[in-house]
């Protein structure tokens, strides 16, 4: 294919350079298909065997005015030939589809990093929309970077000259031109994306053909023009042997729930109301009907959780899934589940800020809400997932605790891991925990609020079972009989039983594990949830530099593992980074009277490894 060359002379063939690690950020308008472009690059790299980590970043508006800063959507992916834990602090390569995308992201780019810009969009009209005075590609402001220019839009239109598509449809293919260029630059084949396009547009073959043509054109453009003097190669990473797939947190959560359903024999009932960033769990489970999954898009968050409780009452695995604002609405019903002592899994995919806050950004600030945001003394077990793949394991564990202890369990994830992805070593089905449950069927001396001596859980007695007719409800119950009781001593007893039941979970959960110096030392960085990657990266770097730093990560936030107090006492300083104003450190301080140093960040984005390294060094003196 011969393609016009815009302003560049054909040069000497590019040299091939091996690199171990690269961070690429695709940025454009929210209608430019940046999430798709980034995901395709990710999938191709995953199949090549790279380790990877992704960070999508998009606005809450579906289509903010084009060309504006508000509408910029980004997708960051880091690929490596070794084990990595984060999507990278700073991008090495920025693909800027327009001036706003450049302006919004250039401050993050690594010094000397690569900018690939779509010159077609760099015009006065767009400068105005982005609030730029002069052309950044020409005014010298990008002097510290290596800038590569190409007119993506013009070349996309020319590539599709002989097709019947209208201009609008042609222009929508331009992200594939950019993707083709990036595939060439990082020496990857376009085959995976070609196959994906064929499936994706099975019913619109002309669209599939156009996209494939443009993808090839982008690749060929680089090959022919030698726009880049260097071409890079990132070899496959050495991962533990096994079969892998790339997985997002919300997918892992949904699959984990299906796995829990299969291993427990309980059909899943998911009651949900659409909310960012949790809706994908609903979408995904809705597509697994062949596994007996019932999904119910309720009229509101309250109906969603109440229907799930009704399903649990009937013997299904009741699950509800939401984010902070929705969890606030579910509080009363969660207490109902706690009072009637039925299993329920409440997934909170946390997002930024109070009220509507930052819907598409990440934060860990619902911990105190799920711990305490209900009337009365109403403790529930709280678990947190720390990586996209970890959502799978935590989902199964949440189901185990809910059905063993007959209690609502909160599972905390967040926008970062929900939308982020990583390679996941697929487990063998036989290795998954056995979650079978026993329904109560014996009518002799049946007491709905009798308790299992070990777990303090009450019997799960299903409607339809002859002889077990009984009533449950939110009014205080008499221990044993379950009749309404206003007796003062009974209320005190029941309040303690509900609390002790949750405390008993600590008897069988694993100890908090210390990585680094298990016997103690100068500094422990303690985290929970999605800070795991950044903390691991920071601690590895610091230890390589010879610093006495260790790390530990908490999956169980209520109850705490039994050894936490003892672990804290082994370290001179405990530093706790959190994407909130210090919520877990508050709980740990209260529980263990340890002067934990809280390090907080609430910018709607995850910690950078470098931030943690710098903060740790302050404490290391």
């Amino acid at each position, binding site marked *: 294919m011969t393609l016009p060359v815009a302003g560049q002379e054909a040069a000497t063939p590019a040299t091939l350079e091996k690199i171990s690690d690269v961070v690429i950020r695709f940025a454009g308008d929210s209608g430019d298909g940046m999430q798709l472009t980034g995901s395709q690059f990710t*999938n191709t790299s*995953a*199949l090549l*065997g790279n380790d990877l980590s992704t960070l999508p970043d998009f606005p809450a508006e579906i289509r903010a005015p084009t060309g504006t800063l508000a509408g910029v959507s980004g997708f960051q992916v880091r690929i490596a030939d070794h084990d990595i834990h984060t999507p990278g602090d700073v991008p090495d390569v920025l693909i800027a589809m327009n001036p706003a995308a450049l302006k919004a992201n250039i401050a993050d780019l690594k010094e000397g990093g690569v900018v690939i810009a779509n010159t077609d969009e760099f015009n006065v009209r767009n400068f105005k929309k982005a609030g730029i005075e002069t052309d950044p590609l020409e005014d010298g402001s990008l002097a510290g970077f290596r800038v590569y220019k190409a007119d993506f839009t013009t070349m996309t239109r020319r590539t599709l000259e002989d097709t019947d598509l209208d201009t609008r449809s042609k222009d929508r293919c331009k992200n594939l031109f950019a993707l083709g260029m990036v595939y060439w630059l990082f020496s990857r084949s376009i085959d*995976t994306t070609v196959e994906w396009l064929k499936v994706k547009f099975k019913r619109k073959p002309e669209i599939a053909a156009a996209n494939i043509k443009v993808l090839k054109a982008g690749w060929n453009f680089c090959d022919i023009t030698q726009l880049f003097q260097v071409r890079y190669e990132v070899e496959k990473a050495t991962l533990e*042997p*096994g*079969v*892998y*797939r*790339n997985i997002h947190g919300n997918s892992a959560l949904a699959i984990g729930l*299906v*796995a829990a359903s*299969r*291993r427990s024999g309980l*059909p899943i009932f998911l009651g949900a109301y659409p909310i960012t960033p949790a809706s994908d769990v609903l979408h995904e489970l809705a597509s*697994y*009907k*062949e*596994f*007996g*999954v*019932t999904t*119910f898009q309720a*009229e*509101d968050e*309250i*109906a*969603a959780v*109440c*229907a*799930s*409780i*009704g*399903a649990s*009452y*009937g013997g*299904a695995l009741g699950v509800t899934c939401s984010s902070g604002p929705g969890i606030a609405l579910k509080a*009363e*019903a969660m207490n*109902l589940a706690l009072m*009637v002592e039925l299993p329920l899994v409440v997934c909170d995919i946390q997002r930024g800020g109070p009220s509507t806050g930052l819907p598409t950004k990440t934060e860990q600030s619902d911990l105190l809400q799920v711990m305490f945001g209900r009337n009365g003394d109403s403790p529930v077990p709280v678990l947190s997932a720390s990586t996209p793949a970890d959502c799978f394991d935590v989902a199964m564990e949440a189901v185990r605790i809910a059905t063993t202890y007959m209690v609502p369990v909160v599972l905390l994830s967040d926008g970062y891991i929900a939308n982020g992805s990583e390679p996941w070593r*697929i*487990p063998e*089905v036989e290795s998954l925990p056995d979650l079978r449950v026993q329904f109560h069927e014996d009518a002799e001396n049946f007491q709905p609020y009798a308790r299992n001596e070990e777990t303090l859980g009450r019997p799960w007695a*299903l*409607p*339809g*079972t*002859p*002889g077990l*007719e*009984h*009533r*449950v*409800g*939110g*009014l205080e119950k008499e221990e044993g009989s379950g*009749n*309404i009781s206003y007796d003062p001593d009974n209320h005190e007893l029941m309040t303690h039983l509900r609390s002790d039941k949750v405390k008993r979970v600590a008897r069988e959960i694993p100890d908090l594990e210390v990585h680094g110096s298990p016997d103690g030392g100068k500094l422990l960085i303690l985290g929970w949830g999605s800070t795991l990657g950044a903390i691991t990266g920071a601690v590895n770097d610091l230890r390589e530099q010879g610093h006495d730093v260790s790390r530990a990560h908490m999956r169980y936030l209520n109850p705490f593992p039994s050894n936490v107090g003892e672990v804290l006492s082994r370290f001179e300083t405990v530093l706790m980074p959190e994407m909130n104003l210090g919520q877990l450190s508050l709980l740990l301080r209260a529980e263990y009277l340890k002067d934990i140093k809280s390090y907080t960040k609430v910018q709607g984005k995850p910690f950078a490894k470098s931030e943690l390294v710098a903060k740790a060094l302050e404490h290391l003196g």
Partner: protein
Amino acid sequence: MTATETLELTKKDFQSDQEVRWCPGCGDYAILSAVQATLPELGLPKEKFVVVSGIGCSSRFPYYMNTYGFHSIHGRAPAVATGLKMTRPDLQVWVVTGDGDALSIGGNHFIHMLRRNVGLKVMLFNNRIYGLTKGQYSPTSEIGKRTKSTPLGSLDAPFNPLSVALGTGATFVARSVDIFQPHLKSVLKRAAAHEGTAFIEILQNCNIFNDKAFSGVTDKAARSENALYVEDGKPLIYGKENRRGIRRGPAGLEVVELPEGADESEIIVWDEAVRSPSAAFELAQLQAPEFPVPLGVLRAVDRPVYEQQVIGQIREREEAKKDASLESLLNSGDTWEVS
């Protein structure tokens, strides 16, 4: 243990050992009695019944029924019952609610349950007042109602529960009265047999906070004058010696006097199964004293039942993807092997 013998069931089998704690003279007693008398006649074993309620006086109902029972939270009984029925279609689920529970705090769940046509039997005890919180006006209270929270009279226009239900596309809409026992039982039986959501408004007297709210139809004298018993296929005739009828006039429904030998051809013959809810809506609007109070089944139509369709989709997919295994799910999408 085997299923309970259904034929032997009596009213007593449905009475729980809990002391009934409504105020003496409350209309709820009569409704409880009618329900306990009706359920044994339905041919279902006792363990198949579940009574789900919200919050309020009426919602204490499950505790007095010796069936499975779930006293949930304020306004949410339809949602709890929907989740239960979707996963356990084998159960006969009755929802007990009140005017505040269903039409104020639970208004959203109420309308969505009806539009979905979930297979639930719903009894709304309408006493036009908040009883359990000691006498505030409710969403069915008449304008100008003086209560503790409205010392100068309430300003809110009331809901007509039948109209609300009809507006949602409900497939079974009926009304009865707490103390009209034979009528109430017959309506309950009709509701039990309906496949989708069966909604019954039960006019219920709160003798403490809103006594005689429905005296216009329940007093002995008023009963014969103002109760219009709506029956499928029969003309809308009511009053002493059936001397009055309802016909459609130029400005809507109107009352016609029917002296002996009068021509009754203009009187509306009720059709409960007509697809459009318009006629039922018009009838539901009638109220005393200008008009009679319609009682009975105003609407009963067939429409696909929600949980049956939900389960149908699942079965269809299970059938189409028989080889679906957890292993295949875990390994779905693009995978690669590291050795």
